[in-house]
């Protein structure tokens, strides 16, 4: 294949990565933005979403579409509820102290991961996609008889992958509307801007925190359900989404939603294209170094706005 179609394919795959990554990262960003909590267990919420999706689809059996649809609702709800429980029993008691919550969420990471290992086991298991039509993509060329289209071998995507992108965009817009157009969003933003002032105005800050932590985890779980037909459910699958979400949130400017989405698209797309040219390990080395260096030299992110 020539380079053109190859890059088109890479960016299509990249868009799927970007879509799922944006959802996951927005969850992390919300939690950091509103609560000032760095949730190291975020990747495990993602993993739990995928594993629960497998359990749901598996126990419903039969119809793939039905199982998947059920998983899409049940997994985020369960994971969100679990996160709210963790918030109320652990984070609240730590008074959301930034450093101590990091240590506690590291503990949470190991607990979730190891309990999954003990119950779900070390196998990677697939969930069937509700629909999965192969769609060939045309490419163009300038031949002797002018412009013409042809269908290069291997240049294709699936209807499911396109649906993932669509679903992610829909949910992201939903989050945007929630944050900017609703009372709940207003309350969240007020809490983010000034916790003490919010308390003084009678906003139940602790309930807002529990809700945000639950919502952040539910977003991670939702994106995991979306990805699990493409990538199997495994108890260690949380590490990469965590790392990538970190990269996205830090580069996008800590706690800024538009910045996070923009960075997710950038990272997702470049991840697909970079892996064409570099080994995945080298790409990861560069990515982690980039996060470290951005934090050191541009602590407000590449797109972030300095406030205060």
């Amino acid at each position: 294949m020539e380079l053109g179609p190859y890059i088109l394919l890479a960016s299509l795959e990249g868009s799927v990565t970007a879509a799922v990554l944006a959802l996951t990262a927005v969850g992390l960003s919300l939690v950091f933005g509103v609560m000032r909590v760095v949730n190291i267990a975020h990747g495990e919420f993602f993993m739990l979403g995928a594993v629960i999706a497998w359990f749901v689809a598996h126990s419903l059996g039969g119809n793939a579409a039905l199982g998947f649809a059920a998983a899409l609702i049940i997994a985020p709800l369960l994971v969100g509820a679990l996160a709210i429980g963790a918030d109320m029993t652990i984070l609240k008691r730590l008074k959301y102290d930034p450093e101590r919550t990091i240590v506690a969420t590291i503990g949470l990471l190991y607990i979730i991961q190891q309990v999954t290992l003990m119950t779900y086991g070390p196998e990677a298991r697939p969930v069937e996609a509700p629909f999965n039509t192969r769609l060939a993509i045309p490419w163009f060329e300038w031949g002797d008889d002018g412009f013409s289209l042809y269908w290069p071998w291997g240049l294709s995507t699936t209807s499911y992958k396109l649906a993932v992108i669509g679903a992610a965009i829909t949910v992201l817009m939903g989050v945007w509307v929630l944050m900017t157009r609703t009372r709940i969003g207003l309350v969240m933003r007020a809490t983010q801007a000034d916790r003490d002032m919010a308390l003084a105005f009678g906003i139940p800050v602790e309930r807002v925190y529990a809700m945000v932590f639950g919502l952040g985890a539910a977003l991670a779980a939702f994106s995991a359900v979306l990805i699990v037909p493409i990538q199997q459910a495994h108890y260690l699958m949380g590490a990469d989404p965590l790392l990538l979400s970190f990269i996205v949130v830090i580069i996008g400017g800590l706690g800024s939603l538009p910045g996070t989405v923009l960075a997710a698209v950038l990272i997702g797309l470049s991840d697909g294209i970079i892996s064409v040219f570099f080994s995945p390990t080298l790409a990861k080395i560069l990515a982690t170094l980039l996060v470290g260096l951005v934090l050191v030299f541009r602590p407000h992110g590449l797109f972030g706005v300095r406030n205060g």
Partner: protein
Amino acid sequence: MSDQAKIIALHGGLILLLFALQFVLPAYHHGNLARIMVLASYAIGYNILFGYTGLLSLGHALFFAAGMYGMALSIHHLEWAPAPALLAGLVAGILVSGTLALLALRTTGVAFMIVTLMFAQAGYLTVLYFGEYTRGDEGFVIQQAQRMLWGVDLSDPVNRYFAAWGLLTVCFLAALWLVRHPFGRTLIAIRENEERVRMLGYNTFAHKLTAMMISGTIAAAAGAFYGLLFGYAGASFATVQYSIFPLLWVLLGGAGTVLGPFIGTLFMFYLIDLSSGITTAYMLIAGVALVALTLFAPQGLVGELRRRFWGWLP
């Protein structure tokens, strides 16, 4: 008895006790204790930065691995003798911790934690990337013939025990001396209130830089000894887990106490050792311990002891 005498009696007593245990312990626990003493040295190094200076690093595995690979690669590929190889491990630790300190200390708090985490992760991936030399996750063995330090065979359990004991003793005394020295007391003051220390005329950046390099170099020494004494170097020692372990040990034993790192390492090692008979998911214990300690006993075992009974503990 004066506080001074109590401190000498307690810490000296522990060192002598560990020396004497060599002659009575059964082989299995004998081997365990050698391992614990090296890992406790790692924790002592970690504690200098976390417990005494108040900087929570999530990247100490980078220093541990720098020491380990600095030592192991020079034996494996350059065929150096153990003594210069250990020195190479130390130098690697100094260089890596100095470089990371210069970068990471430009940040504070949460950002410092993430920056150290990211660079350590990049270090781990680098070990994997150069798998041709490091043999990646699989790692490589250092042969018995390559572990003769000045004619002493370090693969022999007795010699190994004494080498581990020697390392722990040096680290222990260094920590004890440091925290009573004006420099160490300034570090404690930085932990309490950095801005105030700065406004007393101290260059707090230079102090933190030195603390991080001392901490990183001790971690590297522990890594180099670990590789040499147990004859193996592998990428798993560079993973995030090996950054979390010293944090866990220090939290359990008591951050900002000289005894804490050893006590914490000892307890956690046996906790995991006992549970591994029951389940393979032994990291569950670590997770529960992390959450429980943060919630209920942020002072750790020795910290509680100091708070309730022995206010004089350094």
